[in-house]
């Protein structure tokens, strides 16, 4: 046990000093201390401390504590106490209405909490780096395809020159990634390793779990991430172990593990798996030219002493621009250099091209805008429910109001009363909302996208945000009913001549607005679900259901695998290629006499079209013999369109110095996912020695077993090289899953919105019906049947629902159209039918809601109804 200091604990004393009257402080503090020391002689120190703390708390007596101004005020307004009592009683008296109010607000607040967590997650990204304000990413801007674009690359010699030429630049770190094979014992995997200058671990805050951060100066050390340590070594400490890194099939090097990074914070846009010294590039790629201005490093980071120093560096960048532009062709000239601070780079990752940041890092700004919209709508829906129910039920409270006014309540006090009641309701709603957000909404969202927002309730800013939300909600929902109700004159109330609540136009407008919103949410849910199905079945322009592919090291590897798989009866055709649809392409500049044009190039073997199922619109495929069609290209339809060729066949252009001629036009195919636009692309014949991929068309029924065969042959041929292939339909990874998620999210939003709107409607109808119990009882006694009573109740809602649908329908249509156009470049054709379906669903729900009340009325005994009061 650690020795305990013989001193009274600190925090109770601070607490006491805050609350106790100043003039008593010295005496009581002294007394307490004396008793404490006395107790330490009799009891253990721990117990003495506990007694001390407990005594401190018991000192909080009215005549000992300070007179706090606000405390006095509250005591003065002892009416407030009465308000709270009345509001709690009110809540208990009509549990259904209370439930509707509290549940509605809670659901909305739950979404707000989730929204908060998401915003915090987004903006705390990369903020854990201690040097986030003084570390900058070097970027350049260049004019491409007519627009100024920003690139995260930097010319190779730039880093060293910056260090030499600017005293402000204290540290420089160059980053270069390579795909390699990593081997340790039986573990062989494809990995991406990062070559960095030893300054890396100084500039970025990635603390190590094991090992020393300075070890990167050693050419033979490697620092790995925690997941990699687990992957290769399990739970044991791998420091001192060796791994073999194979840069190519012949060229490998042993590295000793000298560091393991601690688990990275989940909100980050930049990390690593393997770090090795930058100079290892010489080993990995003999002849790598560090001084070549025409080639790029993946990234160069610089660190300056003061954030303001960066302007000095920026001013001096023009000479490097000249050096750079002298070294490269005119097409690749750059416009300027720019530095992006690490603290804010994550917001710009969508704009900066070819940066080193993690794949799938988005700025999230669109999502934040979208979610804030949804949260506000949800809050609005909940507030409307509250307002409607408050106004309708206030008729029952008119007497109370009259009495209050008679005994001296001013209008202001009545408003305060209604608002304070509202704060009680919102407070309960907030408690439930926190639980909902914390235990339901956030885990749901994290589960969908497989990430952790590291949300915790232990966040002081959350507790500032929540009361703000609570107050805004309470006032937004309470102010109108409060003003409306407090307006009535005492005399008219007590005379009983005030009639309102049932025919309030505002109530109807709010309900109508809710129905419109619900209609929009339902339409969105339907459209996203349908669109998901549509895109899943849409043609990619090639067959992706019965094609397998795998990367191969070189021509001989291709040949070996080809020979084995050729004998397999399940395989229908085999093709090699240098690039493969969905995996890689080569961005190429085409020269025409009058202009330059950028397109994606895919170098393939002549049989590639057949294997991949790409159809030709015009012209011919490549001829299938060695050395055929060396200068022929097949272009896609988008390229024909973008170049506005009326007669594409026979058109010519130059790449570098070779002239190519168009011999065929392929129908458009998606080499990117449906989230992006089709790009101009063309095929050339690949030299066999450039083959990097093998594609196999297989019998559809035997696709799985063919895949197993492929893997088996691979393992027998190359036990040392990990298999790197798959089904063509999987090249977009979780693309189909993403589609499903969109539908899922919208269905949840729609369900919540519909529930909220229906709760509101239910509340209104219930109040309306209970106010007319006697009328219905008399009708029934006089022989009214189901039809008559239903008509009577429905009559009030015909107009409202019709108007809402006529407003909501077209609105939903244009809303969802703009959302779809914004999110997807290719989506299903929108028809008016989706809105009709949504509207019918809505009507059905409305009818069911109202019908429950009709059944209740009809089942009730008219005698009971007439006995009321």
């Amino acid at each position, binding site marked *: 046990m650690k020795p305990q200091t013989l001193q009274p604990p600190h925090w109770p004393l601070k607490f006491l000093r805050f609350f106790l009257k100043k003039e008593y402080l010295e005496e*009581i503090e002294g*007394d307490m201390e004396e008793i404490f020391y006395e107790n330490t002689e009799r009891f253990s120190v721990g117990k003495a401390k506990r007694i001390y703390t407990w005594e401190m708390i018991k000192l909080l*007596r009215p005549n000992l504590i300070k007179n706090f101004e606000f405390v006095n005020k509250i005591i003065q307004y002892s009416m407030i106490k009465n308000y709270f009592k009345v509001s709690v009683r009110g809540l208990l008296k009509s549990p259904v209405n209370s439930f509707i109010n509290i549940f509605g607000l809670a659901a909305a607040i739950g979404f707000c909490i989730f929204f908060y967590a998401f915003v915090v997650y987004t903006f705390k990204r990369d903020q854990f780096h201690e040097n986030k304000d003084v570390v900058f990413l070097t970027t350049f801007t260049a004019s491409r395809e007519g627009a100024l674009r920003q690139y995260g690359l930097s010319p190779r010699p730039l880093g060293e020159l910056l260090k030499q030429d600017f005293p402000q630049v204290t540290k420089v770190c160059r980053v270069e990634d390579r795909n390699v094979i990593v081997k340790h014992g039986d573990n062989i995997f494809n990995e991406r390793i990062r070559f960095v200058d030893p300054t890396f671990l100084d500039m970025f805050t990635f603390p190590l779990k094991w090992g020393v951060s300075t070890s990167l100066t050693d050419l033979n050390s490697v620092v790995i991430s925690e997941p990699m340590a687990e992957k290769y070594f399990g739970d044991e400490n791998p420091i001192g172990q060796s791994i073999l890194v194979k840069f190519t099939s012949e060229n490998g090097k042993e590295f000793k593990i000298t560091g393991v990074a601690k688990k990275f914070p989940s909100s980050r846009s930049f990390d690593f798996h393997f770090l090795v010294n930058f100079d290892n590039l010489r080993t990995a790629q003999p002849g790598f030219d560090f001084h070549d201005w025409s080639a790029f490093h993946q990234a160069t980071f610089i660190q300056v002493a003061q954030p303001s120093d960066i302007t000095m560096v920026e001013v001096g960048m023009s000479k490097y621009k000249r050096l750079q532009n002298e070294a490269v062709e005119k097409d690749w000239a750059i416009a300027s250099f720019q530095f992006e601070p690490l603290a804010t780079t994550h917001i710009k990752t969508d704009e900066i091209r070819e940066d080193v940041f993690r794949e799938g890092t988005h700025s999230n700004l669109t999502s934040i805008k979208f979610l804030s919209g949804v949260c506000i709508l949800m809050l609005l829906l909940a507030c409307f429910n509250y307002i409607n129910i408050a106004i309708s039920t206030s008729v029952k409270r008119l007497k109370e109001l009259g009495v209050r006014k008679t005994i001296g309540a001013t209008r202001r006090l009545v408003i305060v009363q209604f608002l304070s009641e509202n704060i009680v309701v919102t407070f309960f709603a907030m408690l439930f909302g926190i639980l909902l957000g914390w235990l339901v909404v956030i885990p749901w969202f994290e589960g969908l996208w497989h990430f952790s927002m590291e949300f915790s309730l232990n966040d002081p800013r959350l507790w500032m945000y929540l009361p703000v939300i609570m107050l805004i909600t309470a006032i937004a929902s309470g102010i109108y009913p409060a003003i409306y109700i407090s307006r009535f004159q005492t005399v008219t109330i007590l005379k009983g001549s005030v009639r309102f609540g049932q025919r309030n136009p505002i109530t109807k407008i709010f309900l109508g607005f809710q129905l419109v919103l619900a209609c929009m949410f339902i339409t969105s849910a339907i459209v996203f679900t349908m669109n998901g199905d549509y895109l899943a079945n849409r043609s990619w322009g090639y067959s992706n259901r019965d094609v397998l592919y795998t990367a191969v090291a070189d021509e001989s590897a291709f040949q070996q695998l080809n020979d084995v798989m050729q004998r397999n009866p399940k395989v229908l055709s085999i093709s090699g290629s240098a690039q493969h649809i969905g995996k890689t392409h080569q961005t190429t500049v085409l020269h025409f006499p009058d202009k330059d044009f950028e397109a994606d190039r895919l170098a393939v073997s002549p049989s590639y079209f057949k294997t991949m199922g790409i159809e030709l619109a015009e012209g011919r495929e490549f001829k299938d013999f060695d050395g055929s069609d060396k200068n022929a290209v097949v272009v896609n339809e988008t390229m024909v369109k973008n170049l506005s060729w009326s007669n594409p066949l026979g058109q010519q252009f130059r790449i570098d110095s070779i002239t190519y001629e168009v011999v065929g036009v392929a129908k458009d195919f998606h080499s990117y996912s449906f989230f992006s636009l089709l790009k101009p692309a063309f095929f050339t014949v690949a030299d066999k020695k450039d083959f990097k991929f093998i594609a196999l068309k297989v019998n559809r029924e035997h696709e799985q077993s063919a895949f197993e065969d492929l893997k088996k042959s691979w393992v027998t041929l190359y036990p040392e090289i990990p298999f790197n292939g798959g089904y063509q339909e999987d090249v977009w990874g979780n693309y189909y899953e993403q589609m499903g998620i969109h539908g899922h999210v919208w269905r949840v939003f729609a369900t919540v919105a519909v529930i909220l709107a229906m709760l509101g409607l239910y509340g209104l109808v219930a109040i309306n019906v209970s106010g007319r119990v006697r009328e219905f009882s008399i009708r029934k006694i006089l022989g009214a049947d189901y039809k008559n009573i239903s008509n009577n109740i429905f009559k009030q809602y015909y107009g409202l629902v019709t108007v809402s649908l006529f407003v909501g329908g077209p609105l939903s249509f244009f809303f969802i159209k703009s959302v779809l156009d914004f999110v997807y470049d290719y989506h299903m054709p929108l028809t008016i039918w989706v809105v009709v379906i949504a509207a019918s669903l809505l009507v059905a729900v409305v009818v069911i809601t109202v019908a429950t009340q009709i059944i209740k009325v009809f089942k009730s005994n008219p005698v009971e109804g007439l006995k009321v009061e």
Partner: protein
Amino acid sequence: MKKTKLGEFEELVLLTVAALQQEAYGVEIKRELESRLQEKLSVGSIQSALKRMEDKGFLTSKFGEATAKRGGKRKRIYATTSYGRKVLEEMKDIRTQLWSAIPKLAFELKAIG
């Protein structure tokens, strides 16, 4: 007895102050009362009784010396005012009178019943 009320607990504290004379400060009063009443008392209850009675004029107080045991803070020594002593004596008289007014038999009967 005048309008001024003296609660039962307050009376006990006041008597203790009177008995302790120069030693009458918070901790000592608490210790004395605890040993006589055979129960634990909180600092808060003693202090709030003292402060109340000071307001009502039964007690006066002045700062005494500081000791190391108290972390250098001074004691506050309480003393009864003449008014306080008068009220105490009145209370005592009233009690004695009441005691003597109880018929012996009635008391015993009550004890049996």
